[in-house]
């Protein structure tokens, strides 16, 4: 067991921000004192107003993991977060629009030692993301690339429209080593003749490693997406103990 360690607040300086889609931006931050992270972990961000009011949110790391690697940890104090703008949100509009290069925010982490891929693990890995649920999966894919892992990876990602697709160009560079399947829930790209709609059992059966390969399965996205995918995978014969989930967003229930 890892020994307990305290997660102290660190100061991150924005060094670059780029929009991945009209409603999602990647923040590159320099964080002196950053201890590193495994692929799939997240950080807590704290914003404080001039009068002392403060609030916190969690964001997944998009950058490659620097711990748990076959060659030992990599030292890096640069991290990237991809922030999806939440309509009427308190923090995401500030991070994606108001925060300027050179500005500082407080953050601490890494948090979450469960939804992580260990780059030393040779098992096949099935990644399934809905919307911005792709972010921690991208961290795993970047880690796989950086350590030249040969673990078989497949990615199934559910996207509303081509304009909402995160990391499209970079994902293209990972193929054919990583098989990428996209499900368009509202509009497909020009010339796309396949079905438009939500993931279902047929799509999961076709796009995912079969249950007998004992792949690690990571599912991240809005709660209804994760519930549907995880339930269907269990129905298809996947071992529930090999399915790790990360859900976000209110259910409205």
């Amino acid at each position, binding site marked *: 067991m*890892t020994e307990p*360690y305290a997660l102290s607040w660190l100061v991150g300086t924005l060094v670059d921000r780029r929009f991945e889609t009209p409603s999602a931006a990647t923040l590159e931050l320099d964080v002196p004192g950053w201890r590193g992270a495994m692929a799939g972990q997240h950080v*807590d961000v704290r914003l404080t107003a001039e009068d002392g009011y403060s609030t916190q949110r969690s964001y997944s790391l998009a950058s490659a993991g620097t711990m748990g690697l076959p060659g030992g940890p990599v030292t890096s104090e640069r991290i990237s977060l991809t922030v999806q703008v939440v309509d009427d949100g308190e923090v995401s509009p*500030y991070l994606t629009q*108001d925060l300027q290069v050179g500005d500082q925010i*407080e953050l601490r982490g890494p948090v979450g030692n469960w939804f992580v891929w260990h780059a030393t693990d040779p098992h096949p890995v099935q990644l399934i993301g809905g919307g911005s649920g792709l972010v921690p999966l991208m961290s795993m894919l970047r880690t796989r690339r950086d350590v030249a892992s040969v673990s078989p990876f497949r990615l199934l990602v559910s996207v509303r429209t081509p304009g909402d697709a995160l990391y499209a160009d970079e994902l293209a560079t990972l193929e054919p080593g990583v098989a990428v399947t996209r499900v368009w829930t509202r509009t497909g790209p020009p010339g796309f003749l396949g079905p438009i709609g939500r993931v279902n059992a047929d799509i999961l059966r076709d796009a995912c490693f079969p249950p007998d390969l004992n792949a690690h399965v990571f599912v991240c996205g809005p709660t209804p997406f994760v519930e549907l995918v995880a*339930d269907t995978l269990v129905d298809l014969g996947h071992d529930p103990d090999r399915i790790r989930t990360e859900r*976000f967003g*209110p*259910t409205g229930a």
Partner: protein
Amino acid sequence: MMVLSDALGACMAIISRGFRGKRETDPRIPPGQYLEHGFPVLSAGPTPRADLSTWTFSITADGGALKTWTWSELTHLPHDDVVKDIHCVTKWSKLDSVWRGISLDTLLSDVEIDPDHAFAMAHCDGGYTTNVPLADLRGGKAWIAYQYDGAPLAPEHGGPARLLIPHLYFWKSAKWVRSLELMTENTRGFWERLGYHDYGDPWKEQRYWGD
């Protein structure tokens, strides 16, 4: 960029220029939390499915069951209807959530408890565990909840029954609970082994190890 000392002068906060926040504040919301009007779901894996005809809840110690209730037996015990604020370590708080459940006082009064058993571990379908001092389960502070907002507790929210310990961060309110193991020594549960705080008092912001 300005740096401001807080009232204690102990830690320094970075001021986020131009940040105002929505300030949907309420004295019932602990530090670092924001008000949530929906009911988010957080679980580490697929939602388990329960068969109420074979479902049981047990209090165990030293490897054996001290007492086991079937679904029917449990839900025919005197219940409490409680309205509680709940606080998730992922930062959302929900005020005035409405639950029905059986008080742990009622269940614990039905078993002979060794005075050395000062800690408990909840065990759940799906393998989830969480640890809590026995004292935090007593005195009208904890329930086995099986209804939320007047309806059977939905599976994704922990149904058929979950632990409800609203004075601690909500990961302690274990979903799909099946047994409570009484222990003489404190050992860590699932999230507590993975970096989350052993106790989890939201008013002290005990989120992670070392908080």
